[in-house]
């Protein structure tokens, strides 16, 4: 069955530290990948998405993610985090023509000022 794994459940960083959140998917065919963010008390928002083309995807608020097909990975990165990046981050995938979005369990990020 298709699955999405997020390795870090809780991450605590200081401001200006670099961030990398891991995401691995299980399906080897055509896959669409997403990172969503949920700030405290707010709804889920799309950070970035990958469908095809350049495997390095730029998103909002300085986030980027790299699709590495050989590693089945789509890790989220930000070179310098801010306190306002404190949120829950979810990786998700859609396989080929299957429109069902498969979610990771999420990573809770806390950034200390």
């Amino acid at each position, binding site marked *: 069955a298709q699955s999405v794994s997020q390795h870090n459940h809780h991450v605590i960083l200081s401001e200006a530290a670099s961030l990398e959140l891991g995401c691995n998917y299980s399906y080897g065919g055509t896959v*669409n990948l*997403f990172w*969503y963010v949920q700030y405290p008390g*707010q*709804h*889920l*928002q*799309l950070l970035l*998405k990958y*469908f095809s083309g350049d495997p390095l995807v730029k998103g909002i608020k300085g986030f980027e993610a790299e699709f590495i097909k050989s590693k089945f990975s789509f890790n989220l990165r930000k070179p310098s985090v801010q306190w306002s990046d404190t949120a829950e981050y*979810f990786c*998700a995938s859609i396989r080929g*023509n299957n*429109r*069902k*979005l498969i*979610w*990771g*369990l*999420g990573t809770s990020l806390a950034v200390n000022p």
Partner: protein
Amino acid sequence: EAGVAQSPRYKIIEKRQSVAFWCNPISGHATLYWYQQILGQGPKLLIQFQNNGVVDDSQLPKDRFSAERLKGVDSTLKIQPAKLEDSAVYLCASSLGTQNSPLHFGNGTRLTVT
């Protein structure tokens, strides 16, 4: 553009009572989703509509949960009777329904069953 609208924002009920949630998707979005998000977990798809037809309701507990999207626009999700384990945030999302279209989420309804 206006986002996905959901109401109410919060609801507290006792177990065995019934409750209904409402969702109005972004105008023109053919696909509508209802998700259940339990604290500390990722969203779990309950039901997916394409226009007014059900595409996927495989994870909907049909003995107590029901959903409809009669005119292919707004949708309601009902729980009857509620159980303690139904306490969660219920998220509505919509998308254009094309292969590359992302999901847009509403603010959700936080349900507490006591």
